[in-house]
């Protein structure tokens, strides 16, 4: 982390030194975001193995077997997801702040903040809740477990509008911005991310093939774009914080 500490504070202990670092709030939000994404990728891809997703075409006995064989990891992994969900607030706040630095109306930042604040409820938490409820009682009616299975994966893939509109709001702000907070090409990467939400729509109509929720187009292309998008925006937000020049001037009112 290339932070050059301009410490305006009278020399104190280590605690007051970091507390008085002019960019502390920005780095706090940044590292909270990093912590959240690490939890997210490790828990969804490695620990619970819900990503890449199991297949929508499975017969009910295979679905039951999947829940039984993954039971402990699903329940404990999603418990940790429930603990850390709120940390997404830091990522949303930092991105909204990036828009406040742009030469656009504050409405863009506020719109993004609200849209992404609500996105986690249908897009992530309902998935985890449905899987948790299915996994906690393996003896439940198989039909009901199968319904929870569909509910979980379609809430995850099929919550589209919040990410679609949210990415477009960020895109338009970047295109209009005259302060060059982000390079213009990143606006088009936002468009790519928005389009993945269009590409995923057929998952509501197909239970097998490339358009199903685990399909080569619907899942693999979308995840590739999402990974690139996330890596790029984390890097660009880091650059933004490094460039930010508060110096050691007075605090704003």
């Amino acid at each position, binding site marked *: 982390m290339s932070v050059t500490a301009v410490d305006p504070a009278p020399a104190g202990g280590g605690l007051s030194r970091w507390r*008085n670092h002019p960019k*502390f*709030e920005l780095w706090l939000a940044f590292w909270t975001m990093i912590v959240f994404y690490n939890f997210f990728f490790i828990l969804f891809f490695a620990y619970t193995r819900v990503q890449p997703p199991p297949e929508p075409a499975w017969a009910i006995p295979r679905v039951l077997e999947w829940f039984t064989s993954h039971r402990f990891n699903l329940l404990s992994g999603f418990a940790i997801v429930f603990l850390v969900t709120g940390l997404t607030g830091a990522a949303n706040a930092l991105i909204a702040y990036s828009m406040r630095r742009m030469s656009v109306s504050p409405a863009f930042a506020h719109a993004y903040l609200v849209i992404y604040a609500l996105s986690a*409820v249908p897009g992530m938490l309902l998935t985890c*809740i*449905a899987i*948790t409820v299915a996994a906690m009682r393996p003896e439940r009616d198989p039909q009901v477990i199968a319904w929870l299975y569909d509910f979980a994966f379609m809430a995850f893939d099929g919550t589209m509008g919040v990410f679609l509109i949210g990415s477009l709001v960020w895109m338009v702000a970047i295109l209009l911005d005259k302060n060059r907070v982000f390079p213009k090409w990143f606006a088009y990467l936002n468009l790519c991310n928005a389009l993945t939400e269009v590409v995923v729509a057929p998952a509501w109509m197909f239970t097998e093939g490339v358009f199903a929720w685990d399909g080569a187009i619907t899942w693999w292309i979308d995840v590739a774009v999402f990974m690139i998008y996330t890596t790029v925006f984390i890097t660009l937000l880091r650059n933004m914080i490094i460039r930010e020049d508060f110096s050691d001037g007075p605090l704003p009112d």
Partner: protein
Amino acid sequence: MTRTDGETILLWTLPALGLIWLSAFLLFPGFVHPMSPTMSADEVAAFYRDPENLPRIRFSMILFNWFCVAFIPIIAMMALQVRRMGHRTPILSYCIICCAAGGPTLFLIADLFWLLAAFRPDRDPELIMLFNDLAWVTFTTQVGYLIAQSLFLAAAIYLDRQAEPVFGRWVAHFNLLVAVALVPAAFASLTLEGAFAWDGLLSFWVKNIAIGLWIVVMGWVMAKTVLRQHRAEAAVA
């Protein structure tokens, strides 16, 4: 001098809300002795079919449905107080706004599941148990936004670099304590019995008492702070 900006009115909604929430909590027959996750589907169905319980379930959950989001105006005022702190960016107040809707939204979803379970109690007991499980799991495990809200608020208070900070340092310590008290509830689905189960000491009593205490203490802190600011502004005017 009386102010017309409405903050005093918003503050006075809090004691009324506290009373409504407490009544709804006591009215719901599944809270005072929290329903056990070990109940069978037939026992759960019998709970909803009981003519003593059914109207109390419906009325308490309708009350919660009406009023569970009513704390958001107070949190909005809290975000404004964070904005007044000696920070260089609005980031921490944005963080609090991000968390403000999360808790009530998830409680509303749990509330809908309870109402659905009570809507047609003659339904297949398996489905009544499904709605009951969805309600209890959502209600109990969704502590993430409340934890983050307390952590962000504590961070904001620690970073308030003013000679006269908006909130005292103890408010930050209190929020950290509440955040810790909420942690066990996230793990409630791992067991059907014991302190971590959804009717257990940690996941039900410690969690809900911590939330109640947080509302009372933060309501009082907010009231004190806002009234102090009003007096200071009146003195200048």
